[in-house]
């Protein structure tokens, strides 16, 4: 980061991305409630700064892997909004032609190698992608998003050890929202914590306030530079808060109302907005960003609702080449 003007532009870029993520998630929630989106829906409201701050430091040819709460990661990496919305709606124009849905959004055209319905499922894929990129002579890196629940699965241990062993260009991003589905992470996680676990596996770790977009951006910038410089993997531990329930239909009523209210006080969009106002950005300019994001997502929803369903015949496509089953009965 250089001068104040550059810094302000960077903060505005972060805010714009975060507004788009928030608006996408709010729109998707409303559409799900209205019965327009089938199946389960996991939104990332409250966690937008982690996705935005990390991906602002990635190139288009860098890759990411994501998890079941992955809309924000995809948007921050540049995935097409209409393709995402139509995928949620199960329409033919979705990135996955309606075959994946919310939990399996991928947009390979921007290096988004896929959300994942299995906790920690993206970790081995990310380290392998990094290994493959090196073999191909690319200097692209891989960012791997997962939650605090993933650190209790074997692939976390295996994947971090592996990445450190082969000095792979991977940025592990642990979005620590403190809750694994319906269970407080601290009640199921022994030991001194995420960063210490990573360090024990040979992966240097940095912990940040994941609701402070500028802090995430600065930490990610440093770690990405180290990784691109050949230093090997790094872990970014970003503490955040999942403002909504596990799924769109989960009210998360077990949480203390005072805790949730306090979390709203700390939520990342409000904080970044206040900071931008302090930096002298006019309220009107921020309002325009917010309005644009809402309008973009409302339009995407309306277009998705009117978009064609997939032809049932494509249910048979893209299983495999050899031994593909083609009969439609």
């Amino acid at each position, binding site marked *: 980061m250089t001068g104040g003007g550059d810094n302000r532009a960077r903060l505005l870029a972060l805010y714009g991305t975060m507004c788009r993520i928030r608006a996408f998630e709010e729109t998707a929630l409303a559409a799900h409630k209205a019965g327009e989106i089938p199946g389960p829906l996991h939104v990332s409201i409250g966690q937008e700064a982690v996705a935005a701050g990390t991906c602002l430091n990635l190139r288009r040819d860098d890759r990411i892997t994501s998890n079941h709460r992955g809309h924000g990661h995809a948007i921050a990496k540049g995935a097409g909004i209409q393709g995402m919305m139509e995928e949620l709606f199960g329409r033919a124009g979705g990135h996955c032609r309606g075959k994946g849905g919310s939990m399996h959004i991928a947009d390979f055209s921007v290096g988004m190698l896929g959300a994942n319905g299995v906790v920690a*499922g993206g970790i081995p*894929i990310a380290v392998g992608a990094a*290994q*493959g990129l090196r073999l191909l002579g*690319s200097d692209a890196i891989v960012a791997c998003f997962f939650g605090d629940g993933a650190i209790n699965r074997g692939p976390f241990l295996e994947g971090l050890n592996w990445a450190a062993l082969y000095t792979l260009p991977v940025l592990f991003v642990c979005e620590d929202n403190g809750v694994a589905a319906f269970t407080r992470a601290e009640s199921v996680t022994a030991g001194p914590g995420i960063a210490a676990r990573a360090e024990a596996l040979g992966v240097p770790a940095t912990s940040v306030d994941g609701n402070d977009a500028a802090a995430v951006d600065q930490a990610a910038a440093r770690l990405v530079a180290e990784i691109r410089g050949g230093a090997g993997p790094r872990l970014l531990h970003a503490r955040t808060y999942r403002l909504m329930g596990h799924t769109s239909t989960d009210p998360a009523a077990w949480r203390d109302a005072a805790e949730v209210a306090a979390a709203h006080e700390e939520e990342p969009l409000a904080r970044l907005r206040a900071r931008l106002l302090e930096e002298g950005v006019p309220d009107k300019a921020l309002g325009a960003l917010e309005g644009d994001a809402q309008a973009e997502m409302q339009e995407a929803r309306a277009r998705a609702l009117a978009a064609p369903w997939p032809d049932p015949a494509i249910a048979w496509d893209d*299983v495999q080449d050899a031994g593909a089953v083609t009969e439609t009965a």
Partner: protein
Amino acid sequence: MPEVTLVEAARLAALQEMRADPRIWVLGEDVARGGLFGQYRGFLSEFGAQRIVSTPISESTIMGAGLGAALVGTRPIIEMRIFDFAMCAMDELINQIAKIRYMFGGQAKPALVVRMPHGIWRNSAAQHSQTLEGWFAHVPGLVVCVPSTPADTAGLLVQAIRSDDPVLFFDPKNLFPLKGEVAERIAPIPFGVARTAREGSDLTIVTWSAIVPAVEDAAGMLAARGISAEVLDLRTLWPWDEAAVMASAARTRRLLVVHEAVTAGGFGAEILARATEALGPGALRAVGRLGQPRVPVPFAPPLEDALKPDAAKVVAAAEALMAR
């Protein structure tokens, strides 16, 4: 044509393909040392440590990293050492590898081979002897190779490496010393084409993988007793050569499936079910299956021998079919 062992045939096939395509690489435990069975002997010096990667004992990540590397355009050969260890990587294989092309609407084809030496071998007991290939034929998205000869192993491995599908390659580890001719230039063998190991007219025996030599021995013993058995080695379980099986069974009207796997729920059941559907319930005079009982593979030689299908059991099963 030079005569080589089955494991050497596999080594030559991988060597040929890796020399032709720099995107192909191998990852797995001890592969840089040549692999547990010598199937990668000499690869490290020729291809270097970036392309022949000895890994930690981290099966989930061996499998999953292979997938990730395939998604960015390399063509990994994922070596699982012994099939049974692939159980530690079922999420990566079943939830990820098998689904990813479909689930992402065709955005990526994970071109990878998973090599899994399987089957009963040197009294290795219940966790090193399994034959569960039928499970994987049940999973959409996967190709299942089950060769039994050096030439078929080489040709199918070349095909597997060139395929854009994820291919499960079940090396028949008990047959690794088996010798046979392999061409200097190994041509790919298409998936889904059975090999007629022996022609016959009285009954059709469908089989695959490590049990094939025992079935061929049995066919010889049956011939001496005046029974002409046709032996079809399927070579791949998915896709499988339904046309060849149906044509032979329609002719002999007796169909016996022999596999090393447990009989109950095995792929033999699928074959007989399809034969009934395709040929009609009255088309065949007799059908049967021979496999292991639904018991884990035991250690002690007399116990293992008691459960494992062998030539004498095949002869008995065939004669029982002929009596009907």
